[in-house]
């Protein structure tokens, strides 16, 4: 229960435990358990059990069918010697390093544009948001048209300014940049979040800065950015977590092969191949847990280095 001005936090929970175990409080607790029972079942059955099972299977030669046995760390050792593992890790990190910052910058630029007081802004907001709700498979197919080396829009535009465009998705060198460009289509939801953040920046500070003679860049860097820093931080962390698991568009565009010449073989795709094409479920489980550790480490790194610099005063 909240009292005015006091959000529900651990403080209230801690308060509860200090109360004696009266019949009323036990009763309340049981009712609470009853109501959350379905969610707990779902969580245990669909999340905790599969995750624990996958940890167990990563130490076995499990293949869904047939016999399997405990092989200890063999899967993990084999992964370290597997060329495709390192290639897929490299491809994924390449993708994350470029697409996450690019996505945040594009979303921020769009949010800044949408924050202006122009007529019909609601329509523009909708238009910019629409691409992110197009189903991933459909948008991947559309983008394969855009990137077609001879007939696609992109190469035709480049030809107009005299550049002979590359093979994009057909070229091992340009396939990853093509995927990175394609990923900017999904910035809609991030744009909305940043827009909400921008609208909370107090106008008085902008006015004060103007009075002090600040131009647009100092205003942006010293007023806007600190106030939306929590949102940017959120974008970075979720972008990292999502980027490492990038899969759908690559699978659609390459038919599950990660081509051309393994240039788009991202980590999740290689995991999928091992699990469902080669029946190496134990191996794939080991890959999944290694990915988990990598993502946790990256997230901790980001938190450790950046959370001190986030300004929560605007919230």
């Amino acid at each position: 229960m909240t009292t005015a001005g006091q959000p529900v936090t651990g403080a209230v929970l801690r308060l509860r435990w200090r109360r004696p175990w009266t019949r009323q409080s036990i009763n309340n607790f049981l009712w609470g358990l009853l109501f959350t029972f379905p969610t707990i079942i779902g969580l245990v059955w669909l999340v905790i059990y599969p995750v624990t099972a996958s940890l167990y299977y990563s130490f076995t030669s499990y293949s869904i069918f047939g016999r399997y046995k405990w092989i200890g760390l063999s899967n993990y050792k084999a992964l370290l010697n597997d060329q495709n593992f390192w290639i897929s890790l490299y491809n994924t990190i390449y993708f994350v390093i470029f697409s996450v910052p690019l996505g945040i910058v594009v979303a921020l630029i769009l949010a800044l544009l949408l924050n202006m007081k122009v007529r019909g802004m609601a329509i523009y907001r909708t238009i910019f948001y629409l691409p992110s709700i197009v189903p991933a498979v459909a948008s991947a197919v559309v983008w394969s048209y855009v990137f077609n080396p001879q007939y696609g829009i992109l190469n035709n535009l480049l030809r107009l300014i005299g550049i002979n465009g590359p093979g994009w998705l057909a070229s091992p060198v340009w396939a990853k940049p093509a995927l990175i460009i394609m990923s900017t289509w999904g910035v809609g939801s991030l744009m909305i979040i940043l827009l909400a953040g921008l609208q909370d920046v107090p106008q008085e500070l902008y006015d004060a800065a103007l009075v002090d003679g600040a131009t647009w860049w100092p205003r942006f860097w010293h007023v806007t950015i600190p106030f939306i820093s929590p949102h940017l931080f959120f974008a970075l962390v979720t972008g990292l977590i999502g980027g490492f698991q990038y899969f759908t568009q690559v699978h659609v565009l390459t038919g599950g092969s990660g081509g051309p010449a393994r240039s788009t073989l991202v980590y999740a795709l290689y995991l999928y191949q091992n699990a469902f094409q080669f029946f190496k479920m134990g191996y794939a489980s080991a890959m999944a847990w290694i990915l988990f550790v990598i993502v946790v480490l990256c997230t901790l790194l980001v938190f450790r280095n950046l959370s001190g610099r986030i300004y929560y005063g605007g919230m």
Partner: protein
Amino acid sequence: MTAKWSQQSLSRRSFLKAMGLGATAMALGACVPATPVPAAPAAAPEAAEVEATPTPGREAPTGRKTTIELFEIWGGGLFDQWVKLAEIYERDHPDVGVKVTFAPGHGDNPKLLTAVAGGVPPDVAMIVDFSTAQWVELGVMLDLTPYFDAAGLKGDDFWPAAWYLMNYKGKVWQMPFDVDPNFPFFWNKGIFRDAGLDPEKGPATIDEVNEFSRKINKIEDGKVTRIGMVPWWTYGFGNSIYTWGWAFGGSFYDAAKEEVTPDDEYVIKALEWMVNYAKEVGGPDQVAVTPPGLQVHFFGAGNVGMTPMVSANLRDVMKYNPDIEIGQGLLPYQPPGEQDPGAGAWISGWRLFIPAGAKNPDAAWDFIRWVVCTPEGTETEWNTLGFPPGWKDAPVFEKIKADPIMKPYYDVLLTAKHAKDPIPVGAFYQAQLEELTGEAIYERMTPAEAMQEAKKRTMNEWQRFKEQQG
């Protein structure tokens, strides 16, 4: 800074707003119909293009004594043909109903495998040539030998290469309803004429293919806009190296040593040919002969001089691009490894099997037998699905011989001697060939390096399979 609302009404109002938005979002999300994934352009030979319709499915008619379930991998037009076939079967077998379920899968088949693992397999399912040995080892398939012998069937009743694939470790595991003769060879007579070549005479050897290509290739601004042939586009890198490896006289498996042999000297020669061909036109990523979203085989775009094709693609091209004049012949071969036209041809195709744990194996076998090796069943299959049957004595072969489109496929059926060898890590081997042939074509490895790596990886994986799952 002034707070905009008081904390108390903030929590209640925004809570209600959030619930409203969340409920709306979930309702909208549920309204999007499930669409099947469109087949990727360089898909396996028989992949039909799928339209954006709700997931196909067909319930068995009520009131039948037994119902069997069939998992169908293609969806789209072929799914409808399977339904027609099921209806005709039901008409002739009033006790049995056939439920047809869409379970997509070419390189993988998650729905089928999940159903088998979960103990609710269908009664009839489809499998591709290179997977049999592995699925048998994993215990996914039911041994059909008792049914086969009881029906009085023999190996001679089937095409030799098809029979080779039906067997593993002395038992029969699947029945071929579709033998793909891979491939006859086709050329665009108009392009030949334009390049100054005789439109009635196709290339006999690979050397002639190179010679003709030099006259046909057109390169504009670095992009190849017309090409003689695209050797690595024979249904994926893996199938391409198989086809041309065999055309050069190579071999991919040594049964005596139980070893895969992609590093066979003729296979490497074939790969070297493909790599040099790509180099001559400026690189595989410069080939720009197809518009985006092309729904027929790339031959239908009219920019490729010669290519192998499966019958379904040939039919499509003839239907949607009728102004292309098509010449036909057998696959080019390359001496000294091979001496006969069409020597590289191989048999592939999809087969029906009964998953382990199926509820109605007897009824499933009756259905499979009807489709695969009875006169009425094969006739129905030919009229609906349009694949050449695996059963040699099917009466439809009289029709096939007489059909001008299908005659080249019949000729290939008679002479094809190769098939992908059944090994327990078949899918893995196919994937390695696919990947490493690509590496060679994109010049990231030499052909010899690529094929040796393929052998090393596959043998390691085979060893691991024996140790960990034997």
